[in-house]
């Protein structure tokens, strides 16, 4: 049993052992704090051979100290003060630097209060075996404890405590080595106070303590001093007080203008309104696209971004034209840059190192701006019109934790790092921080005060362990705001009561189902879809007519027969907007009974459809088009590959195969026509993930999607149907038709790409029209690099705007066009199971052919606009979620592969930064950054980066160069966030980060 004792604290010592002070809380309340401490004599000095102290049997400091320094030949110990650790941690961590160090408790605690990350590094240092550091608890030793005296700053008190402890050690060493009579007195080691504070040194010398500055000391070290001097940070040379005199709370950001002033400013054109977009690569930069400028307005630096978070609607003020700048080509990673920032203290820091560093980074950029590059307007945020804050998926940054014991109930302030790189770190107060480490959590931002560097938020809930599939999937859905809850009872009640036994009733003109429906059951209809497709919403047929023309039909699932306006199911579908496809999960827009059964045009069953039937000449010219509600019976459901092989199989001559051939020949002509009209053949990096089995959903491989002829077949007819339907509903409902458009991109978007192509490859990109662009894209070929053309297409696609749904009465007639498809009018009609806009189009089309009256809501422009706004947003989010899901699985594949061998892939350089390269690995469909240490030579005009290679020759890498990168998934130690890390393999370079 352990010995339990009662520690006595004599009343006489109360001056030293008891402390009372008042503290003001954040809310302004004054709180009295009483503290006591128990002083003792059994605090070990850590020097081996000391008989007066009770020492634990650990590694102790050598009794003679170290004789390495030329200044102290008799051996010495060093006692560094707080600044040494704050500023020179790299030196302390160096393997070459290992004199016996006495680390005072005062110093340790001061480091802890200043920066937790540094403190954690220091603790690791104390524990490491190759360092000789002894922690002396001077505050608890009765002979070294100090109390703050009147008018003394905490900083001075600590300095005094450090000096007192140093003096104590000096006299203590004489006790260890008592002079033995008759012998020559042995040379005694000395204790050296290591400090860069001149004032402190002067005071120390006065008190008879040996003092030294870090530089002076390191220079005296002999062997490795040159290497160690390199590690000294410049800051150490200046003398700065340990603690910033906290002038209560200093505003770090300018205050916002009152809302009325903001609105007035926007109205009279002084201010501009727009969505704030944070930069992916540089956390100190953001941009706002406003109608007044063709190029996005740059916001550079924290103050100018003024607490705007990605997605907020902000009001900005534009700076003078002379202050306009070029966006910087530097990757600044928030995590790396702010590694040592402190969650708790950052509240009351004014101008500190971090800001100074950030300023420096920004200044560097400014210098690098070359005269030739085109400038962008700059500005600053003066007000927030609307916050678009939501719950963000985050990880807890483990270094910001003050206590990592899982049982700890203490409330701590920690940083939560959002998964998205566009968001700032969020400060969070929680009692369960240790338990949340390694988990994905949901955090919402509550507020962002002008006095606080980071937004403050609160913990919502934990999603599960990082990298578990469930947590990743849910976090993905949350991150992209995808509604994924199961359908409620009210919604399910809207389904036909027969459930999955619902069938098309036998033909009877009096039956409401058969009213005005054509019976197309006899036609050879088939569907062609990707493998494993369950929600088949389109089917096709074609047959030759007696007049030599061809009848082709597209049959779309008749969702509007089941989903009626203003029912709970309709409202829910409108809110969901679209079905979301993740690699291993589908989040349906409509209940699965409809989506995968009743509306799905499965083979061999009768299904209701909405048909578009054309009469086409063999040259694919439309003779006429008609629309009809119908009943069809699909004869077969092909996959793209099956259809392809069937078509190519010369031995087969049955009707179905024949109709596929007819459709295919028409599709080719349609495509040729479209291309001639100037449609773009764009590319996006799409990859397919192969899952081991549907249950385990462990990915086994990833490969680029292949495109077959039949893909194009289906696509062409869908486009044709969409265009025909668009014309029809626009004719009938010129005010409220639901259409889709793709605005031509502003020419300025292409400037950079044009410039790169011109300079690197000598190619021209003509962006005057979509046709010209298509033609010049075709010419962008590099015979040695077949993938180059695809790459250029991908990059061109990124310069464009995204397509959107709109209400025909809301925009000018001349902006209806679809740029990418080169069609004057377009809509979405063909996938009502998975897109809500199509459901609306179905209703409008049904009304325009007189099948049913149009519901009142679809007559209202405002209602249609509002609905489409939601659908547009959901659509965008769904795309991003799908992409992110693929990315996650690619990561899993890489990880699985990485276990066995190093993954090396060919990649193209797509961007050059001042300190790294953006590369695109087409085989995996992922983009990554290759960062370089030091200062590579960056040529902004020619888009090249020159990096030293191991043979001391410089390697120049330019945009569009093919390189080989090593791809691995690396887990961030602090946040547990899996990161794809890329390093350059070929051409070889000296130091990649």
């Amino acid at each position, binding site marked *: *049993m*352990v*010995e*339990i*004792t*009662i*520690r*006595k*604290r004599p009343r006489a010592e109360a001056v030293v052992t*008891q402390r009372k002070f008042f503290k003001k809380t954040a809310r302004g*309340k004054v*709180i*009295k*704090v*009483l*503290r*006591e*401490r*128990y*002083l*003792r004599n059994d*605090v070990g000095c850590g020097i081996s051979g000391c008989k007066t102290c009770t020492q634990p049997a650990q590694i102790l400091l050598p009794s003679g100290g170290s004789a390495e320094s030329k200044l102290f030949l008799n051996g010495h110990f060093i006692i560094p003060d707080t600044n040494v650790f704050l500023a020179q941690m790299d030196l302390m961590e160096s393997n070459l630097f290992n004199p016996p160090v006495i680390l005072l*408790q005062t110093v340790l605690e001061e480091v*802890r*209060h200043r920066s937790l990350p540094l403190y954690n590094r220091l*603790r690791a240092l*104390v*524990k490491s075996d190759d360092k000789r550091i002894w*922690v002396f*608890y001077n*505050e*608890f030793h009765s002979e070294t404890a100090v109390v703050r005296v009147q008018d003394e700053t905490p900083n001075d008190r600590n300095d005094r405590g450090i000096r007192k402890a140093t003096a104590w050690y000096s006299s203590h060493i004489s006790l260890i080595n008592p002079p033995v009579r008759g012998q020559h007195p042995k040379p005694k080691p000395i204790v050296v106070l290591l400090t860069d504070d001149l004032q402190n040194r002067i005071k120390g010398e006065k008190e008879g303590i040996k003092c030294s500055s870090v530089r002076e000391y390191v220079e005296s070290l002999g062997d490795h001093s040159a290497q160690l001097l390199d590690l000294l940070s410049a800051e150490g040379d200046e003398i700065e007080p340990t603690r910033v005199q906290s002038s209560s709370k200093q505003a770090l950001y300018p205050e916002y203008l009152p809302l009325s002033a903001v609105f007035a400013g926007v109205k009279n054109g002084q201010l501009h309104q727009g969505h704030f977009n944070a930069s992916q690569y540089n956390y100190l930069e953001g941009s706002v696209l406003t109608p007044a400028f063709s190029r996005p307005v740059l916001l550079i630096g924290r103050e100018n971004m003024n607490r705007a978070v990605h997605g907020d609607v902000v009001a900005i003020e534009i700076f003078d034209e002379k202050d306009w700048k070029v966006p910087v080509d530097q990757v600044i990673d928030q995590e790396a840059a702010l590694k040592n920032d402190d969650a*708790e203290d950052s509240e009351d820091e004014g101008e500190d190192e971090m800001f100074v560093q950030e300023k420096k980074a920004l200044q560097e950029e400014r210098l690098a701006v070359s005269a030739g590059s085109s400038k962008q307007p700059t500005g600053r945020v003066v007000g927030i019109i609307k916050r678009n804050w939501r719950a963000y998926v985050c990880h807890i940054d483990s270094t910001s934790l*003050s*206590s990592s*014991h*899982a*049982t*700890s*109930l*203490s*409330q*701590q*302030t920690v940083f939560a790092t959002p998964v998205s790189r566009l968001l700032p770190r969020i400060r969070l107060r929680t009692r369960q921080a240790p338990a949340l480490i390694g988990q994905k959590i949901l955090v919402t931002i509550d507020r962002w005060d002008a006095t606080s560097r980071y937004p403050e938020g609160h913990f919502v809930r934990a999603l599960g362990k990082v990298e578990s599939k469930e947590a990743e999937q849910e976090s993905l859905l949350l991150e992209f705001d995808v509604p994924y809850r199961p359908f409620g009872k009210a919604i399910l009640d809207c389904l036909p009561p027969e459930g999955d036994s619902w069938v098309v009733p036998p033909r009877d003109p009096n039956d409401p189902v058969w009213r005005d429906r054509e019976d197309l059951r006899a036609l050879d209809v088939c569907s062609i879809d990707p493998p494993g497709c369950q929600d088949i919403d389109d089917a096709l047929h074609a047959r030759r007519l007696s007049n030599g023309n061809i009848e082709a039909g597209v049959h779309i699932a008749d969702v509007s027969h089941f989903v009626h306006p203003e029912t709970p199911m309709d409202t829910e579908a409108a809110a969901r907007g679209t079905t979301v496809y993740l690699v291993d999960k589908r989040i349906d827009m409509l209940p699965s009974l409809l989506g995968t059964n009743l509306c799905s045009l499965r083979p061999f069953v009768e299904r209701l459809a909405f048909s578009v039937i054309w009469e086409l000449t063999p040259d694919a010219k439309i003779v006429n088009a008609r629309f009809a509600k119908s009943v069809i019976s699909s004869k077969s459901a092909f996959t793209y590959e099956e259809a392809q092989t069937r078509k190519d199989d010369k031995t087969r001559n049955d009707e179905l195969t024949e109709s596929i051939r007819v459709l295919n020949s028409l599709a080719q002509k349609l495509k040729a026509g479209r291309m001639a009209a100037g449609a773009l053949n764009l590319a996006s990096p799409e990859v397919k993930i192969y899952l081991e089995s549907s249950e385990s959903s462990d990915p086994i491989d990833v490969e680029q999607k292949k495109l077959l002829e039949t893909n194009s077949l289906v696509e062409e007819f869908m486009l044709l149907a969409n265009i025909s339907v668009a014309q029809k509903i626009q004719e009938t409902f010129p005010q409220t038709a639901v259409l889709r458009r793709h605005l031509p991109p502003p020419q300025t978007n292409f400037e950079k790409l044009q410039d790169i192509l011109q300079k690197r490859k000598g190619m021209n990109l003509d962006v005057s029209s979509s046709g010209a662009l298509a033609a010049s894209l075709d010419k962008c070929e590099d015979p040695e690099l077949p993938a180059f053309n695809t790459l250029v297409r991908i990059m061109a696609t990124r310069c464009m705007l995204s397509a959107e749904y709109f209400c025909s009465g809301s925009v000018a007639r001349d902006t209806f066009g679809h740029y990418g498809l080169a069609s004057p009018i377009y809509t979405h009609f063909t996938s009502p199971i998975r897109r809500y806009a199509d459901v609306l189009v179905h209703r409008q089309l049904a009304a325009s052919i007189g099948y049913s009256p149009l519901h009142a809501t679809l007559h209202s422009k405002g209602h249609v606009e509002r609905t489409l706004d939601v659908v547009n947003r959901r659509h965008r989010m769904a795309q991003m979620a799908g992409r992110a899901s693929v990315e996650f699985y690619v990561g899993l594949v890489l990880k699985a592969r990485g276990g066995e061998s190093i993954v090396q892939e060919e990649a193209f350089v797509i961007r050059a930064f001042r300190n790294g390269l953006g590369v695109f690995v087409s085989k995996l469909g992922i983009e990554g950054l290759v960062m370089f240490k030091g200062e590579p030579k960056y040529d902004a005009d020619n888009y090249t980066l020159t990096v030293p290679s191991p043979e001391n020759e410089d390697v120049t890498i330019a945009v569009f160069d093919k390189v080989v990168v090593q791809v691995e998934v690396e887990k961030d130690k602090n946040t547990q966030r899996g990161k794809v890390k890329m390093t350059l393999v070929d051409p070889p370079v000296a130091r990649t980060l």
Partner: protein
Amino acid sequence: MASRVEILNDGGFRSDGRKQYELRDIVIDLSQQGSADGSVVLSHGLTQVSASVFGPREAKMRSQTLHDRANINIEVTFAPFSMGERRKRSRNDKRVLDFASTIKATFEPAIQTKLYPRSQIDIYINVLQQDGGVLQACINATTLALAAAGIPLLDFVCAVTGGVQSASPLLDLTTLEENDVPHLTVAVMPRTGNITLLTMETRLHVDRFEEIFQLVTSAGHVLHKEMKAAIKDRTRTLVAAMSVAPKAVGEKDPLYSERMDDS
């Protein structure tokens, strides 16, 4: 900033310089206070409580009279200045009432109430200063005040708080520590080893419980020695004041019952 203080640092020291198994300084002042039959001001470190005992006396209220034993009435007040933040608690504060009834339950098995049927023992506890272990201080103070009042007890009731930081048990927690670690308070009757109170408001793993419970119980015995010494000391002073010279060492004091003098 509470969370910035390390509960137990790498050197094995707690935030106030104690080690794991060290109790805080205990000060017992048994001097007379007003007209109370027995009173004490007790401090564990910076936690200070005063307790006064009146009775046994005739029950004031008929309804509270028990025909076969004495009724124990405990009232606890928290001084508004006892905490960092000045706050007045009403007399009917639920937490305070709950607190008082906990103490009452602790003492019911210890006081020989059967000796005083139809009477009442009033115990007034005043918390003067709080720095963790308030319940423990109240119980210990009550024991001492009861003894000082001469009310027959079966045994001392000694209470100690214990907690676990990660895997290391701690004894006698301060507010700082109470906020941070799961903790429990145990009141033990040292002679019999009976436990009259065990409270825990936080979660503690079962595996740790046994260990910490044993530790706290043995800490109760350590405290018992200290409390007994204080009572003896006080009695000696009183006896001296009555100008009855203390008998030679080894002889029993008349006022000093045998029950108190175990060993």
